[in-house]
């Protein structure tokens, strides 16, 4: 199955949907857990009884059940908090980069965003889409939580045609201005932009209470740089051409790439944004599951700490 195709995307949705119950919980936790401490209220659905332990909220004691079982039992709930999530897709020309039979970066980004949208809508969150192009966010699909809304989201994602250069910093600022309340912002981009401006924009979003997740997508050849001999490279956004001895420059390139990735990591970290790096050469499913697991563990630690 060719990655990046519709078939592949459906398969990825199924993979994420077929996650074991714990994993789906993780996904749910991913999308809500981090905000439990900051957003109280909403309805709760009983899930199970667990034995009371020191530190548990005494308000959750189920006295009746405790009397019947002759021990202190605590009620646990499935949280069904309705969240607003905004999916942001970078539509710069660099996202069209594709090599061999692998998906383009844009295809991978669409797949991942579509999968996450599926999950979010399933648990009742409102999900919207914006496309980041040049210095603004456009092609908005308003946030809705209906399951039928997924088709509209995916259709919007499919229509995106990459071109030109995107100023991620400015575009994110316009997104921040549009979102009225604290939301979960999921940005899919290769992050090829001015790092300082991007960092500042992310920090401003964070300051407004938005929860940030950055999915950085890069082409396998960008990560491995397998070229040899004399090559001419063109920047798809500026058209600038550079002739280089790929064999000779490979080692230096990899050093520069590592520096670039470290900078991206630092940029996201300063804005408390979580960054996930995906390669077009790998199946995104395992990477996402792994990321979700890490995130759930973090959520538990935060809950425990709270």
């Amino acid at each position, binding site marked *: 199955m060719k990655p990046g195709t519709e078939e592949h995307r459906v398969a990825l949705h199924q993979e994420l949907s077929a996650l074991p119950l714990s994993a789906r919980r993780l996904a749910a936790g991913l999308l809500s857990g981090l905000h439990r401490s900051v957003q109280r209220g909403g309805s709760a659905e009983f899930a199970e009884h667990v034995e009371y332990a020191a530190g548990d909220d005494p308000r959750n004691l189920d006295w009746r059940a405790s009397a019947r079982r002759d021990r202190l039992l605590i009620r646990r709930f499935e949280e069904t908090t309705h969240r607003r999530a905004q999916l942001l897709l970078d539509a710069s*020309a*660099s*996202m069209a*980069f594709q090599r061999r039979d692998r998906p383009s*970066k844009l295809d991978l980004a669409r797949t991942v965003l579509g999968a996450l949208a599926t999950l979010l809508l399933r648990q009742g969150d409102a999900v919207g889409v914006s496309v980041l192009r040049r210095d603004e966010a456009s092609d908005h699909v308003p946030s809705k939580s209906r399951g039928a809304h997924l088709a509209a989201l995916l259709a919007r994602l499919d229509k995106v045609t990459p071109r030109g250069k995107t100023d991620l910093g400015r575009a994110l600022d316009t997104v921040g201005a549009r979102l009225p309340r604290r939301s979960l912002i999921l940005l899919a981009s*290769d992050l*090829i932009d001015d790092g300082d401006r991007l960092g500042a924009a992310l920090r401003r979003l964070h300051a407004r209470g938005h929860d940030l997740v950055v999915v950085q997508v*890069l*082409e396998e050849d*960008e990560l491995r740089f397998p*070229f040899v001999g*004399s*090559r*001419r*490279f*063109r*920047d*798809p*956004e500026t058209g*600038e*051409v*550079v*002739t*280089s*001895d790929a*064999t*000779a*420059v490979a080692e*230096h*390139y990899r*050093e*520069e*790439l590592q520096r*670039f990735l470290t900078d991206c990591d630092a940029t996201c970290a300063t804005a408390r944004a979580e960054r996930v790096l995906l390669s077009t050469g790998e199946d995104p499913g395992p990477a996402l599951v792994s990321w979700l697991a890490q995130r759930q563990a973090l959520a538990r630690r935060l809950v425990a700490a709270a």
Partner: protein
Amino acid sequence: MPTFLAPAFLFGLLAVAVPVILHLLFRRRVPVLDFPLMHLIERAERSRQPRRRLNRVLLLLLRMAILTLLALALARPLFGGRATLTASGPVALRLVVDDSLSMGAKDEDARTRLEVASEEASLLLSGLPPGSRVSGVSTGGGQELPWSSPEEAVEWLAQREVGLTRALLGPVLSDARRDVLEAPLPDARVVLLSDLARHGFEEAASGADAGEPVPLELVQPPPVSGVNRSVSGLDAEPLPDGRLGVTLRVSAWGGEAGEVPWTLTVAGGDEPPRVVARSSLSPGAGASKQRRLPVAVEPGHGWSELVLEEDFLPADDRRHVTHHLRARPRLLVVDGDPQNLSFGAETFYLERALAPGVALGYEADFITVAELDEDSLAGRDAVLLCNLPELGQDRLRLLQDRVEQGLGLLVSLGDRVVQAAYNGGLASLLPATVSVLQEPPAPAVPRPYGRVDLSRAKVHRWHQLLPDDDAQVTLRLFDGQPLMVEGRVGQGRVALLGTTLDRDWNDLPISPQFLGLLDGWISRLVDATDVEVLDPAPVGTRLELGLGGDRWLVGPDDQRSKLPEDGAVVVEQLGRHRVMDADGRVSVSFAGITDPAESDLARLSSAELPGALGPGLAVVTPEGDESRGGRPTWPLLLASLVLVAALESYIARRAA
């Protein structure tokens, strides 16, 4: 300013642009690849840029340097030479190229004197005024150059090769002077390319009566330093004890030669060549040293080769000589007129001629007719019957049987001969009828016997011989009368001499040619005709072999060529030559050698030159300007080329 021997190659400098063009073409052909993270490539390039750019520029410069050096080396520049001759307008030049053996002396760069002189002359020709004409001749013969353009003359010069002959410049220069006087332009000169070896001017150029001397431009290559060692002699002759006596001589020219190692190889009969001796000689400056050594060789035709350690003139470091070592026939001489005093005996002169260790060295026994029996004939190759009155029936039958089996028989007549017996019972053996006794008032003179000149011999008395139909007259008197007749009986050969073998009827026995005559007769009788071994002949010598018919000359390279009808050949190669008949039998052999005079590289001084040239030629080359062409630099350029190529390869590999 340098001058160039092959300026056309300077167009090769245009090739310097090739690396640049290739670089540009190569760049254009590289496909363009969209790459979003190009800013990382740019940063990576910047981090390695200084060294990379330096390498790239260096490689480009080195590649351009390689092409430049190659073009310059092929153009063969010369520095410091005098590239032109002084002329106000077009000139006509008659080139005289000395291509003798001494011009083959090589310098440290392994260039012969002829090559150096040709390069210098080419340089001179390339600088001639427009409209100039050039013709040329070489001393060793070869193709002449008619009046042509200087460019054609340069090509002609490039084709000249060192010969093996001796230069005799005088006559060639005389002819050149005459040609120049008939040249198509008023300003005409002779250009002599020569090492001016003294031996080339033994005969001065003529032209004293021709008025104004013709200008002569001299192109003289610089001398080769060192001592020329040469084989100045190699002889091989049979020794009385049946071995071969080889005498070798080594000479040193131009200084002390020190120890000169030599190797002697000998081949004879069916024996393959083998090294028989290795040693060394130390000839003094301008002197020779020789050694004589006996060598055991199989009888038959053979050759010897002496080889010295090669020096700068290799052609004279090797010499051949041929020999013929005959198996000695065993003879029985029957004296028909025995005397008490040996001086009066019929066989007195024969005994001395055949005596071992003194003359021919044949193994011979002398008996009377009464002793002639089966035992005395056993093991004999030939029998000589001298002035025998007659033979009895038994002896005649015995002799006839043996002759039919291959025994050679020589019968000489004399005053005891009974004519009736010779024409009766003996007639079945003899090839001619013995007729009347001739005794003219004036003695007769024999014609030459083969190559033996008998014009000083005198025959006072002889029996007229009437040859049989199948007989062959092998010796005649000058008036045509047969003096010796030869015929075959079975497998044997019988010769009848109409006169005596002592001095009674002729003075042949006391003539210097008697030994050769007797040797020739006996050789024919025993059917062991000698290979005639001629003295080694310098290349270029014309040899009158006196042989005709269906014969072939076989050279050192075993190539056969038909012997001309007049039997004269010109020696063209060094080494062993043989003349063979149609059956492959060798009749004459000789060795082609270098002229010993060519080994002496001593030059004429500038003071001697006018006298050697004669009054018809006047040297116009400035004195001391021996090297007109200057110093060649192409070997240096080639060495630089190799170095630069190695450096380019190293940097290219490191950059990759």
